[in-house]
């Protein structure tokens, strides 16, 4: 997902009896469906895990601007250009809300940015794949925003108040993005032969990377169990991936496109689609920095940050001068 492979601390979930009074009150509040707010007591591990999770989510929104920004200057119509630009602008806004949510946990946006730029913090593996044709703008909206929604809708009920509220705002916009992406695919799938070919090619390239967005199976992971006890993770990765496949396969069929999986089959007994796992070696390679675009994505973000230094410094210096003049006048 946007936050993948988040290792929460702990060696397994403690029972209420083993907790000290603060922690116990905290956990009981979560169990009762209550929200934790910034000023409330919280275990260190909860705070650290959330910073990692929200930070990674924010970084994904920011880096996620790049693969779609790649097509803004080549959009096929004025309307499509405006829709795409507005979408990418929304993603920047999502990054902003999420950095704000992370800041309530006592970390600054600047610190998180430095950790992204140095490679210390990660962003979603999906944004390390290139966008090669206009159909990729359709596939990204349909599949990538679609997978993001799968994960983020349950997070609207997450235990940390600022994160849950950010998710409510974000989810509304993400579902627009998904519809717009599907609309692009529809137009392509019903278009000329070249357009249909582009649409199929985009699905071929984005299908497995989209499945990877949910992360490897974590059903047996203690980290995952702790995050679930804290309600900063609501479903297992496999549950979400299955839900995504079940939703997406009929949509692909409706488009007249073929999902690139020979073993894809509807299972009458379970009522779900059986599907092939993505190549998890590829996933770990991408996480290690060896995806098709890792180097370029980080280069682009670093260049933007370095090139922008004089601007940030200039605006700060001006604001300080103005403040000094105001104070002198008082």
């Amino acid at each position, binding site marked *: 997902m946007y936050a993948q492979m988040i290792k929460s601390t702990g060696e397994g979930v403690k029972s209420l009896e083993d907790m000290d009074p603060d922690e116990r009150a905290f956990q009981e509040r979560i169990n009762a469906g209550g929200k934790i707010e910034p000023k409330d007591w919280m275990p260190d591990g909860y705070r650290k895990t959330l910073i990692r999770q929200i930070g990674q989510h924010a970084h994904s929104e920011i880096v996620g601007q790049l693969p779609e920004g790649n097509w803004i200057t080549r959009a096929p119509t004025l309307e499509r250009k405006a829709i795409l*630009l507005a979408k990418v602008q929304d993603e920047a806004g999502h*990054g902003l809300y999420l950095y704000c949510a992370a800041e309530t946990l006592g970390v600054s946006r600047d610190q998180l940015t430095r950790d992204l730029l140095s490679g210390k913090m990660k962003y979603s593996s999906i944004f390390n794949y290139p966008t090669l044709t206009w159909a990729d703008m359709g596939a990204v909206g349909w599949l990538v925003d679609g997978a993001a929604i799968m994960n983020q809708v349950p997070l609207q009920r997450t235990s940390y108040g600022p994160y849950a509220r950010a998710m409510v705002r974000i989810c509304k916009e993400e579902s627009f993005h998904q519809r717009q992406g599907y609309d692009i695919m529809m137009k392509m799938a019903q278009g000329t032969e070249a357009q249909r070919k582009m649409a199929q090619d985009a699905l071929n390239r984005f299908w497995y990377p989209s499945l990877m967005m949910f992360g490897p199976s974590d059903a047996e992971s203690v980290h995952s169990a702790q995050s679930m006890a804290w309600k900063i993770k609501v479903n297992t990765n496999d549950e979400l991936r299955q839900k995504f496949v079940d939703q997406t396969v009929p949509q692909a069929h409706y488009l007249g496109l073929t999902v690139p999986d020979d073993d894809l089959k509807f299972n009458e007994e379970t009522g779900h689609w059986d599907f092939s796992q993505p190549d998890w070696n590829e996933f770990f390679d991408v996480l290690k920095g060896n995806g098709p675009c890792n180097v370029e994505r980080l280069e682009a973000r670093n260049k933007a940050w370095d090139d*922008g230094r004089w601007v940030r410094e*200039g605006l700060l210096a001006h604001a300080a001068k103005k403040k000094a003049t105001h104070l002198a006048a008082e």
Partner: protein
Amino acid sequence: MTDPLFEYLCRMGDNTLVLSHRVSEWCGVAPVLEEDIALANTALDLIGQTQLWLGLAGEIEGKGRDADTLAFRRDVWDFRNVLLAEQPNGDFGQTMMRQYLFDAWHLLQLKALKGSSNAQISAIAEKAVKEVTYHVERSGDTVIGLGDGTEESHQRMQKALDRLWPYVGELFVSDAVDQALSAKGIAPEPTSLREEYDTAVNAVLAEATLTRPDSDFAHQGGKTGVRHTEHLGHMLTEMQWLQRAYPDATW
């Protein structure tokens, strides 16, 4: 001569089309997140205005060309934007200086067009003037903030101003198209906007502690389409590639 009204609408629409393209090139790589969002806002407003101006141009022409056809199927010599709009982004300072110099003119132009004798034009201006009022506030504040910021930001802004100033004059050059339209009360005489422009720009430059260049030399050839810069061809290569590579597709 082509219909002056069509020419004029292409000038308005090509200015916003070309400038929105340039601004959108910043997507995802601005100096801070808030600027990414603000630049996208400006570009979005300008795309919307392009749809209106070029849409009306196509309607007036009456040959079945819509805004998209005009935007994506004309070559360099048919573009009517001022040279200022097609100047490359350079650093963020050059981008914001270009924006301010354009916005300050754009606002005056649109305010005048609100009183156009052509109802469709005045309706477009009415909508656009609200957006551009905000653009000029923002770009003006940025020019001031960076001009009167650090030593480095000051120097960069002065350099941007010196680099772009020779492209300001073209905004105020009057030709047969302008004269034909102003005679009918459709659009203002460009020269009539200069004084107010100078007053506004001088005030912002003073607050920005920047020095207005002495020379008022003006490069020309954009709004007539006679001689664009080399940059426009490269922009169109990118902007129009898909439409030209797949001419029978709809998107």
